[in-house]
């Protein structure tokens, strides 16, 4: 039970992380008793578990994930969406809210090609393409606000430990922010300026995800921009 690599540091694929009976977290693999990193990322130790938090990489769907997707095709019984994964996602008409039964209307009246849709992954495994649903609060077509697309690997950092980063962003910029696990982030602000600052902050998280003291730096950046967040609003009210 020896930790070889320095925790919180950048590791390359094939770098020795630890030796012995550790639990394998994401992006690590074991050869004999030695544990190696499988990708470029930050090495983290959590109790007995060794993990590499990737710095790059695409989105791989998981059941229950909230994802923002773009409609690429409208069929007779559903839609095909691009959710920035290696697989095309299907959204069946039966997974939209409203009355069941055969529909006489054209499906493109609900969602048309090019529309952004916030949805949830209903089913996915190695043998089947992801199946989506828009039944649920907040799900459906996105027609207002701004959409930011960042690398899916940076989403955990954007949320932060127990949501610290994202709740700070919401509070300081006064924007409502919805984070899709696939890297699609939706921002609704009370003014275009608030939205602009929030978007800039999100890009900053993506760029500097692996640095220390990021939350503080972003808070400072927002403070400098003179945008009135939630705290100030309650004070004036």
């Amino acid at each position, binding site marked *: 039970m020896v930790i070889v690599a320095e925790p919180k540091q*950048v590791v*390359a*694929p*094939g*770098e*020795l992380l630890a030796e012995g009976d550790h639990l394998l977290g994401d*992006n690590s*693999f074991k*050869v004999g008793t030695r544990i*190696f990193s*499988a*990708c*470029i990322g930050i090495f983290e130790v959590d109790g007995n578990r060794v993990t590499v938090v*990737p*710095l*790059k*990489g*695409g989105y*791989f769907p998981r059941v229950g994930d909230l994802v923002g997707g773009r409609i690429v095709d409208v069929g007779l019984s559903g839609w095909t969406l691009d959710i920035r994964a*290696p*697989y*095309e996602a299907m959204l069946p008409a039966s997974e939209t809210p409203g009355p069941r039964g055969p529909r006489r209307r054209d499906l493109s009246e609900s969602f048309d090609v090019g529309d952004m849709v916030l949805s949830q992954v209903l089913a996915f495994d*190695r*043998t089947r393409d992801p199946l989506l649903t828009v039944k649920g609060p907040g799900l459906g077509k996105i027609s207002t606000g701004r959409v930011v697309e960042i690398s899916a*690997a940076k989403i955990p950092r954007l949320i932060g430990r127990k949501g610290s980063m994202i709740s700070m962003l919401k509070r300081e910029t006064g924007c409502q922010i919805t984070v899709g696990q696939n890297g699609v982030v939706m921002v609704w602000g009370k003014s275009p300026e608030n939205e602009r600052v929030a978007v800039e902050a999100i890009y900053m998280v993506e*760029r*500097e995800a*692996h*640095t*220390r*003291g*990021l939350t*503080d*730096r972003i808070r*400072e950046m927002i403070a400098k921009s003179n945008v009135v967040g939630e705290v100030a609003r309650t004070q004036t009210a």
Partner: protein
Amino acid sequence: MPEPKQPEKLIDDKGVRIDGRRLDQLRPIKLEVGLLDKADGSAYIEQGKNKILVGVYGPREAHPKHIALPDRAVLRCRYRMAPFSVDERKNPAPSRREMELSKVIRESLESVVLTDLYPRTTIDVFIEVLQSDGGSRCAGITAASLALADAGIPMRELVAACAVGKIQGHMALDLSDAEDKYGEADLPVAWVPNANLVTLLQMDGILTINEFEKGLTMALDACKTIHSMQQEALKKKYLVIKEVAEEREETEVVA
């Protein structure tokens, strides 16, 4: 441009090669990562006069669909030489040599990429030789494994590659174009350090068993050096951002 003339001697009386290197010396290597915005991962290598750019896309949906495998990702690899990469214009059509190199490079990379994590997808590797100076398949593998890592594709480790050869009866490391053309043998080797696997081994020319063993040892030593350079290049991209960001923080605190 005419073909460069054959040098009188590949090694002079003091044991120095035409480009001033000793027999066991690598050419200067420059590695860079993440130059292409549109590609998921990219890398660039300069090794002597070689200049090679690699772009990686994926894992992405497999097209045409029938090439997809149900249990793992398909690794596709294209090695290509630009028409202006050599002295005489190279015909841009894919040559027999390019197809062969694409295949051996793919096989060399397949042994490290964890393809079973992404069933029914493809990972595409494009190796573009902009300027060629001998040993470009090895430099291509070195850069391609870096580009794969830069794309965030899970892999067992980076592959390092280097060639050795025989010139004027001596085993020499990392042959240049002239040494490859007018030398007696060429032995490209790709090596995966932790697993201690040789994933590419070709030979052109004739070597005795002793020469082969000596050459292989030299090549593996060079691969070790290249491997640590690869790790450094891969991390450098992130360490630079980190330094800049954290330095900005410190100056702000002081101000």
